[in-house]
């Protein structure tokens, strides 16, 4: 054991932060994430063209390879790839962050309930969690996106994709939270709180859930990467929102031009890889920093 663990007041979080700071790849990942968040926030100000704008067509530059004026080239339809990739950053981060937030809320609530209570309700909850864990979700996501986009929830746009991804994506968090809740509820500090008269609700959400936040944060971070990748696949296959700029939509358009305009396929894909890599490195770093078993 090193010195720092013997100091008083070093909470789990400050110890974690100290370990995170020393991890080079975690810092690189965080820098990438910060960069993409900055681009997403500033997108309307730094993108040279508005979203889904065909302006370069009228400037006679449709289908031109990367140049000084269009650093990432132009599609045959006249869409500037650089500008569109920036707008895509904003929308893809929205999908990743929103879906991860919603699935975390659902997963924590259902996982904690399934782990804390005994009997039929928790058996059924566990069954539901397991079903969602093994079903081929991508197929169902594609199917739902296709059917709902123009029949039931017209005009929801990208938010529809967020809702569908969330509906199918909460089980990994629920699984972990259930396991941790099962482990924690037998521990002494919970029994102490119970003997002081704390009710089930208070025990669960004031005493148990705050103590399982670190694995939840790790998985939620990695899930952001996963949801962004899934959104890219959904839009690439043509099941996304055709009126909103996303990386997947660019790749979808790039695929139909793949024999001539390689730049439409290359650059948005690089943006996806870099952004997802950032979240994965950050998630791995958080996992190393917050995992008490690895402390030496």
């Amino acid at each position, binding site marked *: 054991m090193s010195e720092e663990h013997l100091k008083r007041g070093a909470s789990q979080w400050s110890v974690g932060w100290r370990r995170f700071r020393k991890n080079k790849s975690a810092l690189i990942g965080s820098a990438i994430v910060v960069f993409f968040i900055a681009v997403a926030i500033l997108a309307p100000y730094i993108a040279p063209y508005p979203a889904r704008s065909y302006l370069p067509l009228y400037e006679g530059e449709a289908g031109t390879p990367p140049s000084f004026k269009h650093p990432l080239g132009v599609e045959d339809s006249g869409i500037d790839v650089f500008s569109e990739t920036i707008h895509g950053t904003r929308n893809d981060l929205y999908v990743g962050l929103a879906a991860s937030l919603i699935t975390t809320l659902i997963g924590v609530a259902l996982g904690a309930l399934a782990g804390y209570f005994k009997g039929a309700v928790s058996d059924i909850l566990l*069954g*539901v969690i*397991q*079903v*969602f864990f*093994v*079903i*081929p*979700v*991508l*197929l*169902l996501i*594609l*199917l*739902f996106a*296709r*059917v*709902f986009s*123009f*029949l*039931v929830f017209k005009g929801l746009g990208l938010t529809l994709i967020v809702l569908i991804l969330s509906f199918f994506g909460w089980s990994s968090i629920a699984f972990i939270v259930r396991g941790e809740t099962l482990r924690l509820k037998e521990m002494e500090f919970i029994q102490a709180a119970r003997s002081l008269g704390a009710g089930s609700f208070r025990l669960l959400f004031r005493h148990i859930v705050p103590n399982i936040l670190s694995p939840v944060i790790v998985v939620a971070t990695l899930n952001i*990467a996963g949801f962004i*990748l899934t959104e*890219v*696949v959904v839009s*690439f*296959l*043509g*099941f996304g929102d055709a009126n909103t700029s996303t990386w997947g939509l660019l*790749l979808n358009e*790039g*695929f139909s031009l*793949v*024999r001539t305009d*390689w730049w439409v*396929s*290359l650059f948005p*894909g690089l943006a*996806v*890889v870099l952004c*997802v*890599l950032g979240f*994965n*490195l950050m998630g*791995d770093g958080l996992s190393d920093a917050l995992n008490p078993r690895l402390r030496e």
Partner: protein
Amino acid sequence: MASLIRYIIRRLLFMIPVFLGVAILTYGVGNAAGSPLNLIRVGLRNPNPAVLEALTHYYHLDQPVWQRFLYWLWDLMHGNLGVSISGRPVASQIGPWALSTLELQVLALILSIVIGIPVGVYSSKHQYSKMDYAITTTAIFGYSMPTFWLGIMLVIIFSFNLGLLPGSGAVSVSYYWWGNPLLDQIAHLILPTLVLTYVNLATIVRLVRANMLEVMRQDYILAARASGLSERTVTYRYALRNAVSPVVTIIGLGFGAALGGAPALETTFSWPGLGYAFTQAALTLDIPLVQGITIVITLMVLVAILITDLTYALLDPRVTIG
């Protein structure tokens, strides 16, 4: 032996709710827009009224949803997946697609296990060496990459620019690559297999490495070393045996995920498998076909998980069956 059979039966029983869940979701979404005819009208331009009439009759559309679902489930149990909007029975179309998908997936899985385990072990034995950094970096890129995008890049380079390999389909139509039908099939397999293997490898290498590192810290490894066993025996007979069983679980789940992720990869390579067929069917809203493919892929995933569970139980003596 009796306990093994009981174990298999218990696992099979678990599959029933999973299967029902998928069946309800896929069937339900076809009815989300009220009558499924609304969907068929969107996918099919100017349908013949007689066709709609026949469909209404065939799919019992004049009856309540739950009753139709039971009819559909009953047919499903008898291997009847219905008739696709194009008029052909779904079940007869699915066979060849499933074979194409399995050909690609199984080949990539075998390759990634054969390569991934030794590479992961090497990486863990030389932790923090230059080679270890190279391996882990390559792995995390594979983990962060959309599979289909890597496929597109390879097609652009090797098919369009260098002309070395075919970039789409499973066989050639007009002439044979490398002048022979068998070599032609192999040529078509190379790029998609390469992409899928790389992505699978990324997961396997990371896991083997992490598990090996954890196992090598255990006391029994120290004991084995102290008793004078060679490093090779300690690594492969003691450590790997214990490190590999969690990997088997992930390989099984990952195989399921790869099957479910087939749409994007197969579309990139126009590979005539279930994923490509699913994408086309979903885009044209051929709901019976979509339902059939989803059910078949679900069954394949469940079988993969069952095989995984059994392998896990056989590999790891600590897991008791029964």
